């Protein structure tokens, strides 16, 4: 009963965490817009949210884990090769931005696009916040029954 009330809050909570992470990644890109050789990063939000919310159900997580270990090695005696980035908690979540215009210093950040992404992410973060607030108000009024 109670988990039905908090399920939606959990979903929006993980969405909010991912939006905050994407905000941080875009801020890193904007900060490094003038650094030679910097490669822009971004988060594929759809995949990341699917991974984050799918991992809450235990059976799907174990199924994913078994397929990934069997795929990384051809033989059981082989050493398992980690396909995840070093020190990343969620594997494969971070990708690289596509370069729109080549630059001589090998910097792949497109500042206009990053700024647009930043504003877009800001609005979506605020939307998620409003969803959470609305859900909390709904539940409180349901509890109070007034």
């Amino acid at each position, binding site marked *: 009963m109670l988990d039905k009330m908090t399920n939606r809050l959990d979903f929006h909570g993980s969405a*909010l965490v991912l939006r905050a992470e994407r905000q941080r990644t875009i*801020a890193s890109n904007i900060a490094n817009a003038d650094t030679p050789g910097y490669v822009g990063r971004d988060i594929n939000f759809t995949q990341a949210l699917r991974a984050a919310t799918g991992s809450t159900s235990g059976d799907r997580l174990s199924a994913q884990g078994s397929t990934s270990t069997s795929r990384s090695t051809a033989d059981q005696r082989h050493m398992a090769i980690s396909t995840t980035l070093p020190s990343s908690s969620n594997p494969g979540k971070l990708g690289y931005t596509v370069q729109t215009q080549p630059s001589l210093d090998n910097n792949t950040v497109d500042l206009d696009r990053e700024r647009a992404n930043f504003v877009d992410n800001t609005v979506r973060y*605020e939307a998620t916040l409003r969803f959470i607030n609305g859900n909390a108000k709904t539940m409180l009024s349901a509890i109070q029954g007034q």
Partner: protein
Amino acid sequence: MSMFSIFNVSGSAVSAQSQRLNTVASNLANVDAVAGPDGKAYKARQVVFQTEKMGAEHTAGVRVSAIKESDVPGRRVHDPSHPSADEQGYVTHSNVNAVEEMVNMISASRSYQNNIEVMNTAKTLLLKTLQMGQ
């Protein structure tokens, strides 16, 4: 709280850009200088940016890794009456290119503004997060 590190990232970028702006200022101030502190003609200085890891995963700040002096030969002007003219009557000025420095300055100030805007937005979002559920 992962969003707090935005202040570290953008703060490092703002600090690096202001150092770049400082170098531009000293280059522009010495654009017509004949002798630098060591008695030779002033040499233009350029900052070198480098990505810096900031605590959490894949969070990249900036730092100024080096300040390099330009090796372009200085401007030589024929002026025999000048006190620092050599035997042939030439005076060596600094090798600062004023146009390049102005472009550098505009780019630095734009990047500075961008990062300040990022910090303001992050602050607004964090304040709104604090009011969650009220």
